[in-house]
């Protein structure tokens, strides 16, 4: 195995291949920064370029894209409160408040460091998991998926400062998640006969609306620029350096984020967005002082960014071992593999060891290289937040709406983005958290489908689910997560009485 790692590394170091890697990284960063575009669009665009290439070259190029895209996306999340790609959504919650405090440099530094380190850890975990990849995939059945989604939803209680309003937001998210055709029940729900709603609302235009457009409406009402402090002093390398230091100070958060990202990444169909939300809420729940979360806690940036880069390593397992793409991005990557004569399946991992290691190392190198590029350009990027609202608002709204359209070339997505922009602004105005809505929206469909599948599988007898190991483990975690605040309160009371 180590032979393969070495030959793969020397292959990547070759001039031409290095060039492909860099091309992938640069395209990845740019497509990550622009909301609505993203890894899938970038791969689709580069796909025809690979026709004449060797399989390994094509894979190097795509590895560069996949490693870089969420790093690019974190910048938009931090600076403009709109996720550049869907997995960056959780980064907005604390990244943007930091920007408003004039600490954008620090947030970017921390995000990039967390991403790079997370990406490296994810790649290492992938290398370690390869021999047992098949067992992992076979471990998660519908009962486990259901519990996983439920675990994510229990995190809502931690993510909302006002529980009732948080739950109202979550209900709204679940409701929106149910819109569309349900292929188990064979019925359309809440579509009102509108063709566009048949497939349900796709997550990207909803996020663009809720965050980017809502933020611009907010800014329009307030006026001025995004960052409130006097610019010149806090912009610059010192800020980013502070961020890097912060990331290493909270190395535990990076580790837990990467672990969550890798594991969730292996679950097909769940993907980076869920991974980063779970990582975020895990960090919130396990932290002692959680008052600052949502107001600009650097750990809230580190956790999701570590996990959304680590997830690529995990997500490759179902793609390579079973040909099950976990996301649109992976589906296109699967197309690249097939085009170059690599047939995903249990045998691929053994037959094409060298190619797989080229891919893993390309992914690894891409996260580090794109991290460096972003850190070097951060001081210029940050200036965006000091632009006056009269210039910034129209530009961001135009880019957001174009991004929403570019996703599926659908005008319906543009209306959806606009609708959710207004909704997002109203939620902000009346103090309802947007986080819980998004988490519920992401997890709702997953939870529902697997609930019905489990019911069918066990012929309605849920007691059989207790024979499923991951189901029991996850159920235990849920009980623990719900009891934790009560226990913490009880302990506090006891120590309080003593004092």
């Amino acid at each position, binding site marked *: 195995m180590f032979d393969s790692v070495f030959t793969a590394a020397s292959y990547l170091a070759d001039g031409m291949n290095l060039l492909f890697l860099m091309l992938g990284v640069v395209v990845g960063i740019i497509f990550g920064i622009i909301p609505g575009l993203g890894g899938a669009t970038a791969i689709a665009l580069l796909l025809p370029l690979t026709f004449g290439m060797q399989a390994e070259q094509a894979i190097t190029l795509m590895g560069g894209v996949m490693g870089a895209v969420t790093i690019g996306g974190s910048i938009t999340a931090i600076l403009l409160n709109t996720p550049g790609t869907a997995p960056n959504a959780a980064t907005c919650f604390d990244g943007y408040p930091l920007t408003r405090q004039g600490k954008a440099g620090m947030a970017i530094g921390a995000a990039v460091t967390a991403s790079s380190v997370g990406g490296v850890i994810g790649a290492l975990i992938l290398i370690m998991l390869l021999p047992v990849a098949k067992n992992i995939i076979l471990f998660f059945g519908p009962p486990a998926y259901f519990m996983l989604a439920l675990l994510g939803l229990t995190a809502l209680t931690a993510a909302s400062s006002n529980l009732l309003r948080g739950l109202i937001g979550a209900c709204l998210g679940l409701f929106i998640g149910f819109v569309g055709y349900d292929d188990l029940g064979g019925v359309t729900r809440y579509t009102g006969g509108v*063709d566009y709603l*048949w497939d349900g609302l796709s997550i990207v235009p909803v996020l663009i609306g809720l965050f980017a457009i809502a933020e611009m409406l907010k800014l329009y009402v307030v006026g001025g620029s995004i960052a409130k402090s006097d610019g010149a002093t806090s912009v610059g390398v010192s800020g980013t350096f502070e961020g890097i230091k912060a990331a290493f100070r909270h190395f535990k958060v990076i580790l837990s984020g990467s672990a969550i990202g890798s594991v969730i990444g292996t679950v097909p169909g769940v993907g980076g967005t869920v991974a980063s939300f779970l990582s975020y809420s895990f960090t919130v729940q396990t932290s002692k002082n959680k008052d600052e979360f949502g107001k600009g806690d650097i750990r809230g940036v580190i956790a999701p960014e570590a996990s959304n880069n680590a997830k690529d390593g995990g997500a490759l397992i179902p793609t390579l071992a079973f040909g099950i793409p976990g996301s649109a991005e992976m589906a296109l990557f699967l197309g690249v593999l097939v085009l170059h004569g690599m047939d995903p399946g*249990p045998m691929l991992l053994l037959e094409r060891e060298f190619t797989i290691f080229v891919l893993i190392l390309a992914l690894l190198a891409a996260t580090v290289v794109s991290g460096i590029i972003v850190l070097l350009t951060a001081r210029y990027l940050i200036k965006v937040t000091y632009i006056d609202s009269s210039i910034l608002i129209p530009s961001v709204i135009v880019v957001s709406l174009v991004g929403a359209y570019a996703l599926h070339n659908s005008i319906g997505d543009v209306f959806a983005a606009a609708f959710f922009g207004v909704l997002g602004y109203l939620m902000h105005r009346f103090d309802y958290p947007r986080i819980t809505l998004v988490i519920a929206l992401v997890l709702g469909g997953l939870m529902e489908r697997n609930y019905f599948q489990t019911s069918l599988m066990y012929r309605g007898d849920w007691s059989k689910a207790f024979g499923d190991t991951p189901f029991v483990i996850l159920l235990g975690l849920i009980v623990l997560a719900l009891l934790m605040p009560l226990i913490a309160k009880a302990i506090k009371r006891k120590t309080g009485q003593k004092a």
Partner: protein
Amino acid sequence: MKLTTKILSVLCLAVGLSFNAHAFPDEDVSIVIPYSPGGGFDRAVRAFAPQFGEHLGADVTVLPRNVPGAGGRRGTTMVYRADPDGYTLGIINLPGFALPRILGEPAEYDLREMSWIGRIEAQTYVLLVSGSSDINSVKDLQALDEITFTSTGYGSTVLAATQIVARGLGLQEKDPIYLAGYSGTSDSLVALVRGDGNVSMAPISSAAKYVESGDLRALAVTGDSSPFEGVPTFAEAGYPELTPLDLQRALAGPPDMDPEILKALREAFNKTVKDPKFLEAAQKARMDVVPLDGEATAKSLKESFEFYEKFKADLKNPNAL
């Protein structure tokens, strides 16, 4: 006055030109793919388009265009309603896109009216059980008390094929469970390996690698011959009525196309499916090229409709609330 003359002369020129327009085709032709990039239909069109363009004419480019949505209905409706000028074509899932009409659901298109250019691919199905089970034949399967099929959701071609096989083999009487809702065929096959259910149907190309690795065991295949050694066709196993089950990918245009245009398209199609360059690309994309010309495709579609009509009562949603 002078300006008006100018405008008039330009208009005359334009009208004159359009009357003397070159024979079809003189601009780019687009093929609508009613799914997102990355799937089997997308791959088929992308392998087919370059050579199809070459055979249509020197300056013609054929552009694949993804219009996903509503399980393929959005893209197909778009082709159905397009001008029948030959510049908008679509790749059609057979019998998948015929199902809504057979099931009596609203569909804004009728495949029987479309102008068929030809079939590119046809795939037969295989009946599968887990490699670790002790079910070795269709008879063993019929002896089981509890049957759970893993499958994709209602409205998918695979679920319809599963329901027809369940009826044909007499499994329907055992009140089987259709564990539907998996996001794709590979997903439902992995679920079968995992043991979520105990039997599944899948197109052979999706299932072959699992059968080769021993994770899954093939019990019988549709079609006239079996690609797996020692595995019978349904006809050989005693169920010849299941032989016609298959999954096809065919090219079609809007209804009422000009016969001249349709002829040009069909000719280019027939040349393309024999073009070595296309066949090489098709092999790379792991396609099952089984070409059929336009008229035969239209006829095969009618037979397909009749076949599915026969099983109409079995095709209702097994998990309807």
